[in-house]
């Protein structure tokens, strides 16, 4: 590293023994700290958002196509011609009230308004083990109802970072579809309204939101996320109402059949 130029006339002086340079080490530490902080910013803004979003949506696609394959293995609808599927006809949805274990994946949420690849796995519980996971992302509040059930199916997800499963929640428009797939079939909810509340407003999770004393008659979905974007001061709440249900045998709703077929590829 310190090769002396050729033809040096002076005899080599005895080299001083290398010593730890305090300033040098300090400088290195500062440079390293700077690099780590830059990396941390990169992780937060890029990796933890875009990359985790990709991981979460492919995990959800995988779960969804796994159910489709199981359905295919069970065989196509036995007598499709005799029993034409009539999506318009209101059929009571199958409700699976099995109590899931914490962090157990049991559903897939897909909201076309949230964009391409917005499908996310729904798992039981709203702890960080679910919400910050790279293959889950959406958590079901354990004390709320099951998908399709009378009452309130309440779920939570991040707005930004950790995949941002509900990043576009404020862009929802009246009547937007919120699809929930389980092993039993597809629940189509229609977005109704948004609400902004304090983080302590647990009444939004009641079977009849804000009216814990009432007995529910509607089948509601409630999405909760943080608000404003990049802040946690408030919560944004989106409500939807169950419109229809299709069995796994009948397959995904026709309007998203192409999208869902793409998940299996």
């Amino acid at each position: 590293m310190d090769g002396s130029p050729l033809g040096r006339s002076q005899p080599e002086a005895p080299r001083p023994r290398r010593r730890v340079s305090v300033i040098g080490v300090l400088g290195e530490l500062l440079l390293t700290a700077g690099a780590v902080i830059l990396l941390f910013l990169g992780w937060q803004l890029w990796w933890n958002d875009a990359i985790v979003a990709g991981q979460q949506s492919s995990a959800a696609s995988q779960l969804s196509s796994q159910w489709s394959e199981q359905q295919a293995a069970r065989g196509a609808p036995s007598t499709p011609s005799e029993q034409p599927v009539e999506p318009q006809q209101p059929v009571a949805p199958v409700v699976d009230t099995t109590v899931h274990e914490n962090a157990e994946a049991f559903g897939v949420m897909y909201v076309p308004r949230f964009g391409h690849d917005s499908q996310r796995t729904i798992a039981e519980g709203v702890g960080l083990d679910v919400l910050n996971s790279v293959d889950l992302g959406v958590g079901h509040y354990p004390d709320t109802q099951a998908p399709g059930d009378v009452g309130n199916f309440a779920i939570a997800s991040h707005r930004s970072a950790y995949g941002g499963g509900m990043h576009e929640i404020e862009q929802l428009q009246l009547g937007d579809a919120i699809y929930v797939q389980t092993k039993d079939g597809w629940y189509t909810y229609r977005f109704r309204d948004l609400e902004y509340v304090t983080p302590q407003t647990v009444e939004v999770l009641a079977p009849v939101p804000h009216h814990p004393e009432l007995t529910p008659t509607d089948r509601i979905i409630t999405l909760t996320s943080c608000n404003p974007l990049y802040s946690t001061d408030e919560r944004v709440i989106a409500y939807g109402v169950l419109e229809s249900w299709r069995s796994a045998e009948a397959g995904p709703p026709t309007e998203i059949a192409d999208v869902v077929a793409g998940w299996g590829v």
Partner: protein
Amino acid sequence: MTVYGALWRILPGPAWLRVILLLVLVAAVVFALFSWVFPWADAILNPINVTVEEP
């Protein structure tokens, strides 16, 4: 003598091999940071809550 200087001297082989070894080390450190250190630090520095809870 500095930490990185010492590291360079400890690594075996010719310069090109040392560069490759250094890159591998850096990749390992970045992987560890992304996988464990940053998620842990983020949870402490910047807890993001998206749920409604009893106060």
